[in-house]
């Protein structure tokens, strides 16, 4: 056919554009940081960096879970609400001791993930629909548990420590998140489970015919996403110093999805980029910080950010 022609054309075209698109998140990040260093007052202040990293920690975790789900050609819209649920559980069980309530909070996240995974793998519900329903249910449950009100957490103990502790300029939660990212990358690249997830995203039929445990893989993927959301909820709660169902995890879903996709994990599945996801998170956080520090009111900031995300996703789409 015109196969040969296409191949030649592709061969000459491919290296250039693919390289640019694959590194686009790094280029954008570097560019933005550069811009901020020049333009934004006070950007070099270590306090800014610290604050930025505190905000990034929970987002890194859920973005990782999201990239895994997206890698299987699925999606998890429930992560923000699961964060809120985890926070709520911590809030109401705080009396049982902080260690216990932390465990219960994370456990709540894991449970949501498992429910999601079962709905998707066993009942064959579309991940979009399943996670959307969980989004509503989990936040509702979080609201109900806390009576819609904020519950302040004690000033001492591990939770409060998590909310403020740093290793020089890097918060402990960010360190944990980065360690988690490292482990995540390892799982994705080197373990059978990680491979199965990528296979399932690349071609679910081929994976099935090749004898792979597709359904078990999906259940695991969404379970893990829920677990990560649970931990993210803990981090956000610790940072806030309170369990607040109206505030924790709100609108985190879009950020997580955007970070993953902009970072090079296409919505069509089959490829997961852990490093890209992390930079996607950092890019979004720096974007937020840029708006705040340049005194762009949060409302315009939100509009700009939404436009940016749509634009970036559109460009990824056009290539992927």
């Amino acid at each position, binding site marked *: 056919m*015109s196969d040969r*022609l296409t191949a030649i054309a592709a061969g000459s075209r491919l290296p250039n554009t693919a390289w640019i698109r694959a590194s686009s998140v790094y280029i954008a990040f570097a560019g933005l940081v550069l811009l901020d260093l020049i333009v934004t007052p006070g950007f070099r202040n270590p306090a800014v960096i610290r604050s930025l990293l505190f905000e990034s920690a929970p987002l890194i975790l859920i973005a990782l879970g999201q990239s895994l789900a997206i890698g299987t050609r699925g999606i998890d819209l429930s992560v923000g609400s699961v964060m809120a649920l985890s926070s709520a559980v911590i809030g109401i069980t705080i009396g049982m001791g902080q260690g216990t309530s932390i465990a219960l909070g994370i456990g709540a996240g894991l449970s949501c993930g498992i429910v999601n995974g079962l709905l998707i793998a066993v009942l064959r519900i579309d991940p979009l629909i399943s996670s959307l329903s969980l989004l509503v249910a989990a936040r509702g449950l979080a609201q109900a548990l806390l009576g819609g009100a904020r519950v302040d957490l004690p000033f001492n103990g591990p939770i409060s420590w998590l909310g403020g502790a740093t290793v020089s300029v890097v918060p402990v939660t960010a360190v944990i998140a980065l360690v988690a990212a490292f482990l995540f990358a390892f799982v994705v690249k080197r373990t*059978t489970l990680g491979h199965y997830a990528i*296979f399932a995203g690349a071609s679910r039929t081929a994976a099935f*015919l090749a004898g792979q445990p597709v359904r078990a893989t999906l259940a695991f993927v969404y379970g893990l996403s829920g677990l990560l959301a649970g931990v993210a909820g803990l981090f956000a709660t610790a940072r806030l110093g309170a369990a607040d169902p109206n505030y924790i995890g709100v609108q985190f879903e879009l950020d997580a999805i955007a970070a993953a996709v902009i970072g090079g994990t296409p919505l069509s599945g*089959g490829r997961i980029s852990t490093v890209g996801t992390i930079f996607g998170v950092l890019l979004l956080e720096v974007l937020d910080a840029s708006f705040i520090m340049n005194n762009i009111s949060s409302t315009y900031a939100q509009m700009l950010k939404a436009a940016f995300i749509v634009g970036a996703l559109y460009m990824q789409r056009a290539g992927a």
Partner: protein
Amino acid sequence: MLLETRSLGKDFGAVAALRDVTFSLSPGEVHGLMGENGAGKSTLIKLLTGFHQPTAGEILLDGKPISFDSPRAAQAAGIAAVYQEINLIPERSVADNIFLGREPRKFSAFTDKARMLRESAAILARYGLSIDPRQPLRSLGLGLQQMVSIARVVSLGARVVIMDEPTSALAGAEVDVLYGVVEQLRREGHGIVYVSHRLSECYRLCDRLTVLRDGRVVESAATGDLSRARLVTAMLGREGAAPADAREAVARAITREALPALSVKGLSWRTRVRDVSFSLQQGEILGLAGLLGAGRTETMKAIYGAEVAEKGEVKVGDRRLRRPRPSESIRRGLAFLSEDRRSEGIFPRLSVRSNLTASVLPRISRFGIVSRRSQNALVAVYVRELGIKTAGPNALISELSGGNQQKVLIARALCTDPNVVMLDDPTRGIDVGAKAEVHRTIRALAMNGLGVVLTSSEVEEVMELSDRLIVLNEGAVAGELATAGREPDDVLAILAAAEAPAV
């Protein structure tokens, strides 16, 4: 003459899909269009319905040359096609579906439901279909749904109706209803192009038959003048030169041991696999032969567990496959290679290494961690053994040629250390050199004691490779023969003699 094509040709780049096709259709004529996969039938249909434009020749409607720049133009001119897949909306009512897109209006803004129902009922009655137009489409059997498609097409003013494999999913009484509709269409003066590979049907319904092969017309005659044998020969034909790998007239002594490598009894799946039974010895190559749509792929998939058979028993060696599932089959030593490499075989975007070791990850990993070294070792082994031309294990599978991709898939199956390998058209779409290598590989497998089940879109190929052939016709076993000393004509004879199986 209602519809005519003169020396119609279509090229896709350097590939000539259709060449010098001259074809004609009169009002009230049912003209059968036949041919195997890749013969050019669907290209011809796409040209007639405006999906593509011809690169040579012309189409004439009512004796006047005409060209369509879009499917809509073809529809407007009165040419419409009805396909196997019901391209309608199952949840909507029959009347809704018939009038979708051009509903009769009341007060110019609202749909005139009463008129819709009335006119739908009238059309349906005209074709002898007692269907309540208010029913949702999905409540009808597939056969009746197809009738609704036809009713829609006719109500839109189609004068030429092209039917693509209309009875492939029908059973029993539904087929008779379709025949009735075709008769009515004929009486009303429509021209019908009837695409099918069910010989008995074509002989019953069609006035003329045209056979395509490799994009050309090889036979075109009145039905009465064309014997079944000649028809089947025309469809399957003979290739020019046999591949350099001459047929090794190896009369291999296949001892019929008590325990066959694979035993299939009474396998049934929907209407596509009907009570199929056979057994396969170790070291034997068994070919499944038959026309397109005979059920070869479906049979293999049912055995493998990719489709869940409703009835039947499959045994690999002495172990019965209880829960039909690919992972189970692999575990028991049964491997399968799909004919659809692109969507059911390779993992696009992934590396050769990933593709090759996709079925054996648990065996090459410890504590859940995949051993990259073992993977690379496996790749090296099969690259050498099968002659896979690739830049390395890291290369993307999409960079490999079709033939080499197929070798990777064969390697994937072999990694699982199977006792039986089922290959569905393994040489489809690969070049001659790679084809020869695949043949060598298949023979080597049998030499090593594996049982091989094989199909091919070319009868010569399956005869050349197989020790024994099972001939399938419309899902049922029509005959069996040992290939030693036989000619493809013998297979054709079995096919020609086969009756449509009783339902």
